[in-house]
């Protein structure tokens, strides 16, 4: 299972979601995407995105000003 990286730092709503979707589209089922974002709104947004799309939000954490998300493609 491949691991993909996405740096969405400095981007505002809805760009982190749009870029994540674009990356996930090119991934295989079971692959993981690690995202870095500085948009505080992305915490709630990635949770909602995963709930609706069925992709798994493996982890959501904060490291200083950076929010980190790990999403596993369904």
């Amino acid at each position: 299972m491949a691991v993909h990286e996405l740096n969405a730092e400095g981007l505002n709503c809805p760009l982190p979601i749009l870029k994540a979707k674009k990356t996930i589209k090119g991934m295989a089922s079971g692959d993981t995407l690690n995202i870095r974002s500085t948009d505080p709104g992305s915490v709630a947004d990635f949770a909602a995105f995963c709930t609706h799309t069925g992709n798994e939000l493996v982890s959501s954490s904060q490291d200083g000003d950076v929010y980190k998300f790990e999403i596993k493609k369904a």
Partner: protein
Amino acid sequence: MPDDATDNAKSMSIIVTKGSLDWAYPPFILGTTAAAMDMKVTMFFTFYGLPLLKKKLNMKFTPLGNPAMEMPMFGGHMAMPNIMSVLPGVGGAAGKMMKNLMAKKGVASIEDLREASIDLDIRMIACQMTLDLFEYSTDDMIDGIELGGAATYMEVAAKSDINLFI
């Protein structure tokens, strides 16, 4: 339809009626986000929303008639008295200020969001009546759009889970 959307995917339609810089954001933000969440999205561009489909976008922004608008300035916020907005150049300056602010804050441009809409296979319908009324040509419009009228929209809206008028 997004390639991984299923037959029971949710759907949304948006009637886009306004084409100024500030009003162009809500339909494109919600449309692209819904499509990114595997929803089937249709946007119907009518009246002043129709120019948002032009190849070359030239969106204006004015604080006129929007007394609630405050811009961050000198560490606080500043509203512009309506009387100021009618002065020559003030509207243009406010538009530039807004675009600079958006770029600084990492907010996508409308051009980028429209590009994303196309990538996400959002169905975009231009209102035929508005096209005739304001004498636009489809040659002025981006590729990949459809032409239609109220009935075309209603057929989509009747089976959509979410219908917005913006």
